[in-house]
């Protein structure tokens, strides 16, 4: 049950939209909650950026969530992207080939 504490988030409102700042390790146990969070955030803003600078771990289920969130945003005519992935998280996004597709310039 400690798994739910492995990550947290912070919402920052900026002129262009909302930045969701994530922190920690996110895996299959956090994927559903992350999707709900992103879905609700996209609902309330024209642009949503996910800041990954403080995230140390993501897996394929989190990649699925990010791509689903991008689909939700695009379908609603909104912008969604991922910024500041570092280290192994950036490497994981790159090796799965989704880093460019999730970058804000493509949103």
């Amino acid at each position, binding site marked *: 049950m400690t798994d739910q504490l492995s990550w947290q988030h912070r919402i920052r409102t900026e002129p262009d939209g909302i930045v969701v700042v994530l922190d920690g390790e996110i895996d299959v146990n956090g994927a559903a909650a992350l999707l709900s969070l992103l879905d609700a955030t996209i609902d309330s803003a024209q642009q949503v950026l996910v800041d990954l600078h403080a995230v140390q771990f993501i897996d*394929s289920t989190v990649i699925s969530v990010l791509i689903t969130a991008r689909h939700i945003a695009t379908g609603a005519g909104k912008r969604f992207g991922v910024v500041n992935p570092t280290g192994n998280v950036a490497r994981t996004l790159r*090796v799965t080939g989704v880093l460019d597709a999730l970058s804000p310039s493509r949103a």
Partner: protein
Amino acid sequence: MAPHLSHPAPGPALCVALMSQDFSAATVTTLRHRLAAAVAAAGLTGDAGYDFVLAVHELVTNAVRHGGGHGHLDLRRQDDVLICEVSDRGAAAGSLPVRLPAVDVAGGRGLWLAHQLAEGLILTRGLPGLTATVTACLSRAEAPDGTPAIARRQAEPDRTVEEDEQ
């Protein structure tokens, strides 16, 4: 007399059990942390260690999501090879997608990622369920250039998935 010191006798490889643990959805994260500690203690560190742990984590996730919700992990060292076996009791029929989906497809990257990150991936379907085995070579991880598995794979163009039966 200790003739084996300079010339090890051919025979059973030295096999050491490092970890043996049941898991379920609720313990995926804890299991990964224990695995990371065991893998580091065995000498697989840095990016190579991270890659191996993520590969195993993807197999564990697969077992939890598609293999009946729980499974068993065995980590052992055989000579200089780390071997991790993840078995589940899933009765799931059908294909095991090891192929990388298009960038706009949400799911289906787990097994591909495990295959990409580990030096070897073997999938065996038996009566109880699926057993997925990944390996990592410790001596290669200790190579002077320290190139992680991801970088090695990326340096080999078109090294895509052999298991893909298309």
